[in-house]
């Protein structure tokens, strides 16, 4: 249903993608005579072409069809995604899901207008038909000569040891069982535990009418734990998950211990939690996933499509001082193995670390192709899409603040009455009004400069530009979020991450109780 044209910007965590039993994808099994060599991140352009059963000539024909009605630009995005999920519940690994999705999305641009269609069949007829549909964004006619493709050398920010397609279900099951045992052993109050193991592998081949040809292999691995504890008739539930562009080697014995320990600790800590007073309070954000503040307060508002349309509260702020000098905020696609990293964006543009705010001054929007052209700047590598079924838009990657001059303890000591927020479930923003929110699952009251009672389940709401001004202190302890964050916009989700050092905001509105 299209009722989300406005409610487009949300961020949530712990989301488990569809399905999965470890089965070999059909195409690879058919294309190779041996095991292993053609899976994973070491594939060549020819491997990708044969993976999708296409040739460069076929792609050129499709592009020519896309431009046949006078469009300026055409791109073709092939994708093959394999997702797996295995779940443990009530002490048994008793459910598994898998999802295989395959197709090509064809986009034609005329100025800043977009025509789009996709085909789940990769035959020349089906692709040309989709290209003709997309071509209708333009209304004249043209004959375009085929352009020679060039493949830029791409970095690899997510090398892994073993491709997920080679990890059998039997290898994954013991992780769930071990974590489950540890969860129950950790605390006698635990009554239920759910552990899930999901992985996804995406093969992408991209080409456009400017001669760019890129390809990428994108792994993602995630283990999540959710548990419920009971004490004196009171029940509490919480969880913890680790997600990244990792292989199974990432889930070391230390990671397994952490998953169990953190999930349990975060759950049982809630028994003593209170609700703070309602109203404007100083808020100290713990280093790590509280980077959600940036994602919601400024990240979406800096997506260039909103700004070129004049709908974002940040539409006139480039070059202006918006925060203290020690505030520098970036959106980065180059962090090793982190969930929001990309080797190349979904429009064939190079990934990079883009400075949104540099030493307190607003520096750059997050651009897709159309916006970069509109503003006359180099694309920033933020053109992303959920899948071949979706139109690329400016999207975030890993959004974080660089370390600052203060220390965590020093920061907390300055607060007479406020809150310390350390775990979150979701957030949202109205980019025009500038109202952003995020939900604090757990944290602490700060009273007279010390962390006192735990707090839980409160929403925080603020104004983006105002909060930037109100960032009073920034610690030196930058940490990145570790969980499975997914950002939603215009009905499509992309994996992202965020990070923050310990940060103090002088005041934001905190949901709580009135006397």
């Amino acid at each position, binding site marked *: *249903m*299209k*009722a989300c044209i*406005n409610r487009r910007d949300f961020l949530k965590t712990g989301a488990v993608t569809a*399905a999965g*039993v*470890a*089965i070999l994808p*059909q195409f690879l099994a058919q294309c190779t005579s041996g095991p292993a060599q053609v899976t994973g991140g070491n594939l060549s352009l020819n491997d990708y072409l044969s993976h999708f059963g296409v040739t460069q000539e076929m792609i050129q024909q499709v592009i020519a069809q896309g431009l046949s009605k006078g469009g300026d630009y055409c791109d073709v995005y092939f994708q093959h995604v394999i997702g797996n999920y*295995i779940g443990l519940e009530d002490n*048994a*690994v*008793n*459910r*598994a*899901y*898998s*999802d*295989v*999705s395959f197709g090509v999305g064809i986009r034609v641009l005329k100025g800043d*207008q*977009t*025509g*789009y*269609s*996709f085909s*789940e069949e990769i035959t020349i007829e089906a692709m040309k038909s989709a290209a003709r*549909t997309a071509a*209708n964004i333009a209304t004249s006619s043209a004959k375009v000569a085929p352009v020679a493709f060039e493949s830029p050398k791409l970095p690899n920010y997510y090398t892994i040891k073993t491709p997920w397609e080679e990890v059998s279900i039997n290898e994954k099951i013991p992780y769930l069982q071990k974590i489950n045992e540890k969860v129950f052993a950790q605390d006698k109050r635990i*009554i239920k535990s759910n552990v899930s193991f999901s992985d996804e592998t995406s093969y992408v081949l991209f080409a456009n009418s400017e001669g760019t040809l890129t390809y990428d292999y994108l792994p993602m691995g995630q283990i999540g734990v959710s548990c*419920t504890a*009971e004490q004196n008739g*009171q029940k*509490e*539930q919480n969880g913890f998950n680790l997600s990244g562009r990792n292989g199974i080697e990432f889930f070391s014995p230390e990671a397994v211990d952490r998953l169990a320990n953190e999930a349990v600790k975060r759950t049982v800590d809630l028994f003593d939690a209170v*609700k703070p007073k309602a*109203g*404007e309070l100083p808020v100290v954000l713990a280093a790590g996933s509280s980077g959600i503040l940036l994602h919601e307060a400024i990240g979406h508002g800096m997506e260039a499509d909103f700004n070129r*349309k*004049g*709908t974002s*509260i940040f539409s006139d702020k480039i070059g202006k001082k918006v925060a203290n000098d020690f505030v520098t905020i970036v959106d980065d696609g180059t962090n090793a193995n982190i969930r929001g990293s990309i080797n190349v964006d979904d429009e064939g543009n190079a990934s990079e670390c883009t400075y949104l705010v540099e030493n307190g001054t607003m520096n750059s929007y997050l651009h897709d192709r159309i916006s970069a052209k509109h503003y006359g700047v180099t694309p920033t590598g933020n053109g992303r899409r959920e899948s071949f079924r979706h*139109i690329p838009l400016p999207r975030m990657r890993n959004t974080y603040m660089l370390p600052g001059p203060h220390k965590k303890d020093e920061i907390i000591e300055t607060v007479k009455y406020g809150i310390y927020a350390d775990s979150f*479930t979701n957030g*949202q*923003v*109205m980019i*025009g*009004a500038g109202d952003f*929110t995020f939900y604090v699952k757990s944290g602490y009251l700060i009273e007279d400069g010390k962390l006192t009672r735990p707090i*839980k*389940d409160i*929403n925080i*709401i603020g104004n983006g*530009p105002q909060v930037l001004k109100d960032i009073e202190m920034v610690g030196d302890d930058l940490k990145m979020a570790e969980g499975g964050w997914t950002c939603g916009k215009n009905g499509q989700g992309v994996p992202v991450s965020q990070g923050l050092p310990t940060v103090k905001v002088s005041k934001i*509105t905190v*949901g*709580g*109780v*009135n006397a």
Partner: protein
Amino acid sequence: MTNKERKELAQWAVDFAQTKGASEVAASISNSRSVEIEVREQKVDKIKESTENGLYLQIYRDNKYSGHSTNNLKKKELEKFISEAVEATKYLTADEFRTLPDPGLYPSGDYSDLQLKDDNYNKVDPEKRLEIAMEIERLARAQSDKIISATGGYSDDYSESVRVHSNGFIGERVSTSFWAGAEVTVKDGDARPEGYHWGGARHFSEMPKPEELSQRAAQDALQRIGQTKINSGKYDMLVDNRTVARLLYMFVGPMSARSLQQKSSYLEGMLNQSIASPLLTVIDDPTIPKGFGSRHYNNEGLAAKKRVMIEKGVLKQYYVDNYYGKKLGMTPNGGYPSNVVFELGKRDKEAMTRDIKNGILVTSFNGGNSNGTTGDFSFGVSGFLIENGQIVKPVNEMNISGNAKEFWQQLAEVGNDAYAYSSMKCPTMLFTEIDFSGI
């Protein structure tokens, strides 16, 4: 492919899976054609047209369970896909409750016409689709010179699906839907508040008119000019019918058999107990002709029936699916909401406003969440301050918090205005003494 061909393919998939070792199998195959158009400044900003296919297979192999989906429906590929799916299932732990539903719960076959499909779908002129989006955008932008941006949108889809179970269920479904709306941005000092409105119908001729959609979207944005946050405090909260649905999720999730069985529901043990004020009667009704949530059967083949879920504040039923129903020894009853309708009150939102001395009319939620295990919730809000029966000024950047156990007992009035453009047909609702946090 026609639905007849899909049924044959689904039956083949079921049979083939059984030859490979599956004990029981459920297969569903779907196809959806959709068009989406966005217009800005009287030009097409985006147009997207495509067809999507899917096959979803659920394998029960000696009480071991797994589910698999693919968008490649060629038999040769499916043979491999199914073989591997059945093979992999054997590594899971057997679970005695993993079996297909009792066939006695399937529909008896007397299908009333739910009118989910507009027979004139193919006659909708592509030019007409564009015209609607253009008209909405033009009308929206014309509402006021304070408007700095407007987007008009149109989308429709035609969906067909079949479902076949190895224990005798065969069903099919065809449906259409048509949606249109606008998003509007206005200038308000440094800020650019946004408003929107979308509406739709299953039949093209019943779509809401461009005038309604554009006016409401523009109003939604214009009314926010000057919005500020106000003092924290306890206020009566009036929530408009378009916005109420968000609040229902406080109890819909906890009503699921899964949350009960996993001990993460604050409604555990509350069957036949009061969970809300007597003004709340919630009926789950899959039989409404053309309803957005209407169905003859659900995603497990269970026959869809009208059911009273909450009656005068008393919880009468949980949402019970096949698997968790078996685990709990409860009869499955549809598992998840279809259309949700309420016993309506007598007055509309304007009349209800006039009796409020000190309250806030909430017209949108912004983020927030609720904790199904404890009932705690907190949401961002914006809306209007009401004093002595009058709307005084717009407010924003505030939160509400509370706990569902108390909150729903504070439901003081239900309006007469069921919202048309959703499967959740909520009326305006009034809650007393809610904790708002602002300044």
